[in-house]
């Protein structure tokens, strides 16, 4: 066998392992992964963001042939968009508020009280994830159909509320469980009332987790399209549902791009908090992990 420079002793496998280690040390894999991810993850988003600010974009130019904002005015003067956007925001706020109202007391009970079946009932919320989602929606829609809830706002609120349960219960439960009890006991010992202890000691400690849960729920609900589509149409049209028709009819490319860009803004808020959400383990909690 010919010698390889620099000569490395050992078998073929040792040598290839060595070169693999060297490559890993120089982070060759990381660089390949990075280029791949930039192309695959950022490539599609690049197209949408630039289309939103394009006046004209002729193939095969890599950037719009002419930038401009004239389509923004046109997009938001469309009656369907002008009414769906505020409605979607109010709907998402309502669902998030209702979800917090019913779930946070429940999560306090799950975390701090002892009762029979606690563990089993807490785990039962995993059922929200254990069905093929669209099949479940059809099943719900068939019942709503008979109850005349199709095409009504309460119907849409109910179907979206189910989606929020797991996240709104599991994140706050973990947070309440993580509270240091000795602080509360110390406050009780010096004569603070239980309500005061809850407001001044417990609540500040769980606040980061609660706000993460509320924010994640709001964003998820704001983008929820499938439940709203099957239960809401034809009378209740949210912004994401409107996107289906904007994409399918392909009227003007810019409409879809501008709506996508605007819809994406709440998500940017989450992105800014990504580090905090990640450290708290909140991002996976919604999946029941």
């Amino acid at each position, binding site marked *: 066998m010919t010698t390889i420079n620099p000569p490395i002793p050992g078998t073929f496998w040792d040598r290839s392992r060595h070169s693999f280690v060297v490559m890993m040390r120089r982070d060759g894999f990381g660089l390949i992964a990075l280029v791949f991810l930039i192309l695959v993850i950022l490539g599609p988003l690049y197209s949408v963001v630039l289309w939103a600010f394009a006046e004209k974009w002729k193939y095969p130019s890599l950037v719009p042939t002419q930038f401009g904002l004239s389509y923004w005015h046109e997009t938001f003067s469309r009656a369907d968009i002008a009414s769906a956007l505020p409605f979607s925001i109010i709907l998402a706020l309502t669902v998030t508020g209702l979800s917090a109202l019913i779930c946070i007391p429940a999560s306090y009970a799950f975390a701090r*009280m002892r009762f029979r079946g606690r563990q089993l009932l807490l785990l039962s919320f995993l059922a929200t994830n254990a069905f093929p989602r669209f099949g479940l929606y059809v099943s719900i829609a068939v019942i709503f159909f008979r109850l005349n809830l199709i095409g009504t706002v309460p119907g849409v609120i109910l179907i979206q509320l189910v989606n929020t349960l797991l996240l709104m219960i599991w994140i706050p439960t973990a947070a309440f469980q993580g509270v240091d009890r000795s602080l509360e006991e110390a406050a009780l010992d010096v004569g603070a009332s239980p309500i005061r202890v809850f407001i001044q000691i417990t609540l500040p400690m769980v606040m980061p987790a609660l706000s993460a849960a509320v924010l994640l729920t709001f964003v998820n609900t704001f983008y929820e399209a499938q439940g709203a589509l099957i239960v809401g149409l034809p009378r209740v049209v949210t912004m994401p549902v409107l996107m289906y028709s904007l994409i399918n009819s392909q009227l003007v490319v810019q409409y879809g791009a501008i709506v996508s860009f605007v819809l994406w803004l709440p998500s940017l808020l989450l992105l800014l908090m990504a580090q905090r959400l990640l450290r708290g383990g909140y991002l996976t909690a919604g999946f029941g*992990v």
Partner: protein
Amino acid sequence: MTTLPKNNSSPRQWFRGSLLPYVMIAPPLLLMGLLIFVPALQSIIRTLLVDVNGESGFSLSRYTAFFSDSISVSNLLFTFQIVLLTLFTIFLVCFPLSLYLRFAKGRVAGLVQVLVLFPLFVPGIILCYALIRFLGTRGTLESVLNIVGVTGYRTPYLKPEAIVIGLVWESIPFTVLVLTAGLGQISDSLIESAQDVGAGNWTIFRKIILPLIIRPLLIVFSLNFLGIFGSYTVPYLLGPAAPQMMGVYMQQTFGQYRRPDEAETQAVITFIICSMVGLLYVRTVAKQRIQQEDAT
């Protein structure tokens, strides 16, 4: 520990001791029961009953109708194909990335992590629109290829491949997060000591890493399986008009053709197929959860 209510305790104490927690957890539990278990059970029962001369009796006719219809069967098979292909691709993309993120440090690794998490902040419907503009005919990708001199690009848009691309794109963050977290529980010292006694990379992977990440792997497999089987937006917007995935098919049957009974049968068929995977998911997470509780 709990002190169960004694007989001599006042009604007020009894309420606070044993009734209050149930009152507090009742609203979300009821909601879940009414909107998940009741519809699912009712659909299963209803699809097994058929009206004959005003009397309802047990019958499998709705299911035989489904399985004797060639469009229904081809849609179901198509869904299976997409699920398997997507799961395979997810694993192919995400496993190396997770291993890399577990062991690599430095700036490149930091950037890779940011990009991997990025799809989490892109809602499905925007992703679809973005992919159409990127992959579609005369889209950004074709422009780039054109500039480097590659011609004859054929877009995957409206083909099964586009569904796989969209579904993989969506599931990257969750899959990598769960796998990386699982790999993170394997300490460096454990691997180093295995290397000290002469274990090779493959042996370390098979004997140490794999057994410790079985649970994350099962979670990733089951949730992705359910997610893909129950998907609608991506196959509807990116996939072909025929064959359709079950989600698209159900929506069409329910929304367009207004045949709730048939849509219900289709839904129950997806429940049955996914039930084993759903149970696997619940069991895996439940075990993990109980172990964590015991540890604290």
